[in-house]
């Protein structure tokens, strides 16, 4: 296996999935955002977005905080330190692979 192919094989599978890559990239650029913002930007339905977020949360890349905006429940999301590192590493690897 040459180096380039090995780099592709090393890509983080959790982030590499297109839906999760969108979420990680959007969250990487901000401190935190709510569920509605991610839904608006990714155009995913609630179920799909929730399932991707659960996968990222399981991997320890996303932290979820349930709160209220007035009387309306709000889900705030942010990338954890591990999530930021993983995303940066993913971008480096992708650059190398391309």
């Amino acid at each position, binding site marked *: 296996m040459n180096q380039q192919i090995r780099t592709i094989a090393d890509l983080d599978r959790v982030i590499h999935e297109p839906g999760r*890559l*969108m979420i990680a*990239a*959007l969250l*990487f*650029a*901000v*401190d*935190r*955002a*709510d*569920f*509605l*913002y*991610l*839904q*608006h*930007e990714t155009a995913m339905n609630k179920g799909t977005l929730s399932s991707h977020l659960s996968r990222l949360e399981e991997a320890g890349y996303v932290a979820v905080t349930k709160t209220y*905006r007035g*009387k*309306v*429940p*709000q*889900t*705030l999301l942010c990338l954890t330190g591990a999530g930021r590192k993983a995303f940066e590493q993913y*971008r480096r690897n*992708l*650059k190398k692979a*391309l």
Partner: protein
Amino acid sequence: MDQVRNLLDRPRLYYNIDGLGDLGGGVMCLGFALILWLLMRSPADSVWHQISVLVMFGLALLIRYGTKAVKTRITYPRTGFVEYRKRQTQVIAAAGGVLATAGMAMVFRQHWDISMVACLTGLAFAAAYGYYFARAVRWKWVIVGTMAVASLVTAFLPADILGDLGSEVPAHPDRAKPLGTILLSLMVYGVLLLISGGVSLWVYLRHTQPPAQEGQ
């Protein structure tokens, strides 16, 4: 990689999705123009000269917190809440402040022609506006073009027109043209930003609906 880059840019573009950034900028420019005009037209010993800095500061605070309040009521319930990275915002604000101060110091020390400086500043602002906002919202290129043309026209306007606009009480003939140029630039940019922000807000309100109250 370009697509990842675009995704990383999206939160920045989201800031002005509702046009409130433009509206804030427009109110700021027109507010400063009004303050400058009042300063020029009021006697040197009037109370206005003592409180003008406070009024400017108050206007800046009003725009900052007013924008936040409107976003909380209109934007966040419709298309979501974003908290931007504080360090990034502070670095941009600090860099902008340093550049503006350095630019002003240079202009006054070198006695540059203020019309040309206003023209170059206007063109730079139009370019930055195009890069940051018009790339995502195509019709804003019309605003960018109008800003650029307005900057050029301001630079080549006859001195007597600018002098009339910038005439003071009591008169200082040497300051009339620079003040007229600054006043005209602020008014033109203020109006353009208000138009741009107003259209953006109208389009945003037309195309988004507040979600049912079931949580986000």
